[in-house]
């Protein structure tokens, strides 16, 4: 399934913050986690993740440090900061409202897959 571009953009920040809340990761591992969480149905353009991460870093929501990968190459690791955790909680509350409203209205719509989509 192809997810609308605007929807991907809107959900990217809380998704990345939420994934980093599980533990520190490098960029590619974040992408793999996104694919895993959506069973491969959400495919981000790889290159676009990094400007997003830098923006989050600039806002002070994540911190980054250079480390070394298993193969001995330079690799940047990202971690959630306390203020990032706060933002995540705010976004979580906002998304709860949005998904709840959507769920109510969409469950009344009779259409193919309308109920299944929210399983």
């Amino acid at each position, binding site marked *: 399934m192809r997810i609308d571009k605007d929807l991907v953009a809107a959900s990217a920040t809380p998704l990345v913050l939420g994934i980093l809340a599980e533990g520190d990761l490098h960029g590619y591992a974040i992408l793999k986690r996104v694919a895993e969480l959506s069973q491969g149905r959400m495919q981000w353009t*790889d*290159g676009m993740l*990094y*400007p997003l991460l*830098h923006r989050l870093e600039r806002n002070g929501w994540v911190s980054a440090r250079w480390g070394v990968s298993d193969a001995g190459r330079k690799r*940047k690791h990202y971690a959630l900061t306390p203020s990032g955790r706060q933002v995540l909680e705010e976004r979580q509350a906002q998304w709860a409202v949005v998904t709840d409203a959507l769920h109510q209205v969409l469950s009344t719509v009779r259409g193919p897959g309308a109920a299944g989509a929210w399983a």
Partner: protein
Amino acid sequence: MTEDGRPGVEHQIDQWRAWVLRREAITTGDAAELEDNLRGRIADLRAAGLDDDEAFLVAVRRMGNLDDVSREFARAHSERLWKQLVLPPSRPSRADGHWRDLGVLIALAVGAGIAVRWLLVLEDEGRFALNVAFAVLPFLAAYFAWSRRLPARAAGALAVMAAALAVVVNLFPFFADEPGVGLSTTAVLAATHLPVLLWLLLGVAYTGGAWREHARRMDFVRFTGELVVYFTLLALGGGLLTGLLLATFDVVGIDAEPFVQSWLLSFAVPGAFLVAAWLVEAKQSVVENMAPVLTRVFTPLTLGLLVAALVALLAGGPLTAVDRSLLVLMDGILLLVVALLLYAISARDPITAGGPFDWLQLGLVVTALAVDVVALTAMASRIADAGWTANKAAALGLNVVLLVHLVGTGWLLWRFLRAHGTFDAVERWQTRYLVVYAVWAAVVVLVFPPAFSYA
């Protein structure tokens, strides 16, 4: 993940990296991150059964359109957007565009020269001082309005505001006596604050109407700093040439001074100003390397000066010349510190962690505040005793405006250095505070003259 040591893939990755690095908005650090991603993707695809070439091609495809990625990097790092100036697909013929810009700019510079010359012909120093900013800055604003395709509504609003200012200031009865008489205090204040107000209005044109955006305002701050550097260089060179010209004509017995004073300077100075503005636009990444160097040289020197001033103020016993000249001196010191700070902050990558230089800047802010507080407390009673004059009110008002700016900057820098805040917050405070300067300048220009009965 497996290490892919095969020469074919390594060679392809090398080529890909060079191709990525050709984009000005992508740094080597970003490229290393993208490469790490690419390698991870290739390793996974190979593990899934693809051969080297297929894995590389799919991984590169997954990376996305590099022009789009580069533009996103530039947006995330607005200081790089400044360096990049032209985003990849938006304006392809970069060199042609610059030459056309220069042609328009030279025409506008000649216009500014004619306006200045016309003001000089009036032979009224007061009118000249009040109006010289109106003779030069609208031409620069016109250049920005043209090059940035400023929306007609914003351009109209700016023109109306500038025209209204010009009318009001020239209708003030500063010159009740005959023309040519020395300026009254409020007229001098208006003449010195007017350029600041007009300059900030110019910022609206510079940002193409998007003056509310933090990143665009920061660009304007950068532009201002670089313009000062370029204009100083041009003025030095021009001064040297003029001196040589005068000396040469003097040797052959021709007095070139009337020509130089009445014609050459009235065209050369505004011309140099506008050309400097164009140079900043055209050669941004060249000067960008100068800003960090200049601030690193002058921040410690200024700190030394301030410490010496503080010691002198504290050790010198009761202040003898506690009057407006001391107030003006304090304003000068604070202005210098604010300018240094703004210049340094505008050139700094906000993502890098705090270092010794940031501490030095904090030291500069704290010392400047200490100097100012010592001077102000010494003056407080005197000001209350001697009553208010326009000069004292203007100097004290500016002092308060600068003080609040520095206290805010110092506090946010402290939070940043203690890892309680971000450098982004320090930056945003600077651009937000610019409005206060515009308001204060407007008060001095428009309210002071009638409030102090044009004295």
